[in-house]
Each structure stands twice: as C-alpha cells, then as structure tokens.
C-alpha cells in the first residue's frame, strides 16, 4: 500500500474507532431503556433474546470493522442485521407502543450503521442508509407524527455531516502526503543538482587552468570556461540565498552584487543576506555598474574591479575599487565647472537621492576607490528590512 492510500486509511481508522465508541454507548443506552420497560412488551422473553443478539452482534461487527476485515460486505451485513433487529420491534412491541412512537427495540443503536455507511460512501452513502433505515422504521408504524419526522431530520443531518467530514479529511490527508512527497523530491533534486553542479564547476575550472597554461586557442577556451564557471557559481549562490527572500518589495543586495562577478570583477559579501527595499538595491547596483563602467573606460575591459559589501547596523557600505591610474585631484570639480556631468556625477547623484553619499577614497596612488554609503534609517522601510 502506498503512502497516499495509507494516509486516507488512517483517517478512516479514526472515524471507525469513534463509531465503535458510539456503538458501545448506544448499546448501553438501548439495554437500559429496554430493561426499564420490559414488562410492557408483548413478548418480553423474545425481547431479551433479541437484546442478547444485539449485544453479540455489536461485538462481532466491531471486530469486522477492523482494518483487515473492513470490506463492503461487512457494511451490507451490518445493515441487514440492524434492519432485522429494528423490524423485530413490530413483533415485540404492543400496537399501542408502536402508535405512540415509543423507542424501537434498538433505539439510537441503529445510527451507528448509518454513520459507518456515511464514512464509507460519503454523503450519498449516508443518505441512502438513512433512507433504508427510516423506511423500515416508518413502515411498521400505523401513523407518522412529529417525533418520527424529527428523528428522520436528525439522522439526515448526522449522515450528511459525517459523510462530508470523512471525505474532506481524506482529501486533505492525501494532499498533505502528496505535498510532503513533492517537498522530499525537491530536496533530493536539489541535492543531486548540487553534485552535478559541483562536477561541472570542477571541470570548467580545470579547463580554465589548463587552457591558460597551454595558451593559444586553448587559452580562449579556458577564458570561456572561466566565464561559465562564474555564471554557474553566482547562480548557485543566488539560489542558496533565495530561501531568505520573501516580500517582493525587498531584495538582497549581496545577491545582486554577487551576480556581477566576472573573471575581472571580484565580489566580497557577507554570508547573511542584506535585505533592502528593491528600489534601493537597484539604485546601488546602478551606481556600482557606473563605477565599473568608469574603470573599463579608463583601463580597458581587462582592468580589474573589486567590490566589497559591508552591512552595519545603521548603514550599508559598498566599496568599489580598481587598480587603474586613479582620478587626479580636482579633475571632477573641473569637469563639473565646465558643465560636463560625467560618471562621477551620476554616481553621486544616485547616492544623494538615497540619502547617502558616494565618497572618493584617497588611495595614495593605488587606483580609484569609491565608497557608496547608504544610511538605513533614511531609507523607507529599511528598519524592518534587516
């Protein structure tokens, strides 16, 4: 038996356990009611024999409803025995008792089989069982009165309710098992993907190294392998961080920066996600790309760039450095005075809009280094973002 069927059956088992209790309780009630009025019966001895049959059958049928015997014929036989006992009321009772609609010999005990049908065959089964039981009951009465109608109404309600609940619980149990299975499969796929990715990364790294050593066309292959290696690695890293992103309005700046990694661009980020409002992430990213563009403009596509992300309690700092010639002192101011709003201005403007600043660090002749500072307090929604 697979896990789905088993989950549905566990729901059934619980229902039948409850119905077993119900059967016992209604049996005690039936015995009590009949013991109190046995002198009124037309055939008291037969009545006691029939009550004995009811007790014995309750035991047998409880055993039959256990999971290993529980087949459709059990439900049918249970119904037939119950109907026979119910109908025997006609023989045991006096005509006056029947006319007054006093309790049948079986009293509420007949409800159990109706509810068993409802669990087995849903609302339809429950209503069918109600119809059978009530027609057998009503046809032995000379008249129909309000208590008959009331009994029928209550039994219809109970049958519908139990039938519906059993169905709904089975469906949800099956869905839960299927969801669990899907989750387990996803985890397993993830694990396999890791192994495969790791293997691919290894080979790409190897091709890159060997290609560079051999030189010529192999070096070109190595370079291509290196680019793909980085692309795959940032994909894996971004997926690892995906779990921590939820709300669409916030994004992980670390992940966004990791995606910029190339053979000439090194990215250093903390292992924890750095969650900021999406528009802030986009602006910071645009500023970083402007820094990188500036590096490429002055140093060519092979110029190296290093990006560092630091998340402090009240601010985020992104450093972007290159090892180019740097920016001579006063050049930016001169350019601005001449009305040339260059890259530097676009970087500063973006950060100013975020309430932060872009600082050109004095590197003592070691290239050009920007520090982009975004204060967290002045960014709307940032307080809850981290």
């Amino acid at each position, binding site marked *: 038996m697979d896990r789905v069927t088993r989950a549905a059956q566990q729901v059934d088992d619980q229902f039948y356990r409850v119905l077993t209790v119900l059967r016992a309780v209604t049996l005690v009630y039936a015995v009590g009611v009949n013991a109190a009025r046995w002198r009124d019966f037309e055939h008291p001895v037969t009545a006691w024999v029939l009550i004995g049959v009811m007790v014995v059958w309750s035991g047998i049928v409880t055993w039959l409803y256990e999971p290993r015997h529980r087949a459709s014929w059990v439900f049918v036989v249970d119904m037939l025995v119950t109907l026979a006992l119910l109908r025997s009321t006609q023989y045991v009772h006096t005509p006056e008792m029947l006319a007054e609609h006093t309790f049948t010999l079986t009293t509420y005990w007949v409800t159990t089989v109706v509810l068993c049908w409802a669990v087995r065959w849903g609302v339809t089964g429950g209503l069918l069982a109600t119809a059978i039981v009530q027609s057998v009951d009503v046809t032995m009465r000379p008249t129909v009165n309000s208590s008959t109608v009331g009994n029928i109404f209550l039994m219809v309600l109970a049958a519908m309710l139990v039938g519906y609940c059993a169905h709904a619980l089975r469906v949800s149990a099956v869905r839960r098992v299927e969801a669990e299975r899907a989750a387990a499969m996803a985890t397993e796929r993830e694990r396999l993907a890791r192994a495969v990715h790791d293997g691919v990364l290894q080979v790409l790294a190897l091709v890159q190294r060997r290609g560079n050593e051999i030189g010529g066309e192999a070096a070109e292959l190595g370079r291509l392998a290196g680019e793909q290696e980085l692309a795959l690695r940032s994909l894996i890293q971004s997926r690892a961080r995906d779990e921590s992103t939820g709300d669409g309005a916030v994004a992980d700046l670390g992940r966004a920066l990791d995606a910029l990694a190339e053979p000439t661009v090194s990215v250093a980020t*903390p292992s924890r996600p750095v969650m900021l409002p999406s528009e802030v992430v986009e602006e910071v990213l645009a500023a970083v790309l402007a820094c990188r563009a500036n590096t490429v403009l002055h140093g060519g596509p092979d110029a190296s760039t290093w990006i560092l992300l*630091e998340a402090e309690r009240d601010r985020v700092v992104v450093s972007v450095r290159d090892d180019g010639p740097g920016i001579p002192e006063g050049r930016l101011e001169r350019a601005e005075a001449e009305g040339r709003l260059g890259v530097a201005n676009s970087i500063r403007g973006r950060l100013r809009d975020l309430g932060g600043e872009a600082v050109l660090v004095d590197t*003592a002749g070691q290239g050009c280094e920007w520090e982009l500072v975004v204060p967290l307090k002045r960014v709307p929604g940032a307080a809850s973002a981290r």
Partner: protein
Amino acid sequence: MVRVMVVDDHPLWREGVARDLTEAGLEVVATAANGTEAINRVLATRPEVLLLDLNIPAPDGVEVTAQLTRRGLDTKVLVLSASGEQQDVLDAVKAGASGYLVKSASREALLDAVQAVARGESVFTPGLAGLVLGEYRRLSEAPPADEPDAPRLTERETEVLRLVAKGLTYKQIAERLVLSHRTVQNHVQNTLRKLQLHNRVELVRYAIERGLDE
C-alpha cells in the same frame, strides 16, 4: 620540501593538482577521495598542508577540518572549493582552516598559497575577507546573551581586513598603512585566530551544556 596531501573526490582534478604540486617541487604524500580516507591518511602521513575540497563524500570538508582541529594536529588546512558556497567556506575557516582559494585560481596562485599556508600564514581571498568581516559584524550585533565573549576586531584589524576584501595585496596594504608586510600578515592572521578560538570555546560550552564533555 613541503609535504602536501590532496583531498578531492574528482580523480581528474585530484591528479591534476597533485601533478602540479610535484612538478613545482613539493612532496605529495597522499591523496584521498572522501572524508574518512582524508582523516585516516592525515593521521598516517602527517602532511604539513592539507589541500581540501569541501564538497566530498561524508564527512564533508567542514567536518574533516573540525575533526583535525580537535585532534590538535600541526597540519594546516587550505580549502580549495569549486562552488564557493559561502556558508561552507566560512564554517570551514571557523573550524580551523588556514585559508581558502577558488579552484579556478591559477597554478602560481595555488603554489603561492600552499607555500604561505605551510609557513603558517593565512590565505585570504577578497571573498573570504568579506565573509570574515560579515561574521564579526554579526557577532557584534548579536544580543550578548546569544554570543557571550564574542571576539571583536581592533580598528587596525578592521582596516586591514577591509583592504584585503577590496583586493589589495599585503604589499599594497603595507604601503598604504605604512606598516611592515609582516605586521599586515599578523593582523590578518589574528582575525582568523580569534574567530577559530571563539568557535572552539563555543563548541566546548555547547558540549558541557549538553553533558557531552566526557
């Protein structure tokens, strides 16, 4: 001659690296393809440097590093990782690894790193420096109840580590901060040592709390 052991589950890679090391005049005393082999062969051959892939059949690279550290061996661990899963790299370094390189690093970079680690230095990529900086920030922002006695970086150490993360070489850092190369090296190493010490204290504390200290 530096005695090295190479651990990697990819034979192609393992042999390639071992050949590079041998050609460069290093002695490859053993290789291993999984964590159990790695630990056993380290104990048998006592290499100076263990070149360790993190993604190996169990116990994984982080666990191997932790076990070797627990045994108090002199072997230095240099992590060589392809996927660069950031948390794994950070965990390995906290567990006692002396450095980290991505597998696509050039042969020269690899040989330099092995030599440096053998001399007792730490090998930091800018990426690792960023992770370590982030870890110290996390520790400093955690409530004191969660992280008692958390280590702190001095201002100088923070300064040096930030420059490493920005891709400066130790030589460039020494020039910029007007320090000796050796001093820069010491600062970098201290940042790792404090983190590793804290990690071990935490593990012992955890073990005592759980009654596992026997």
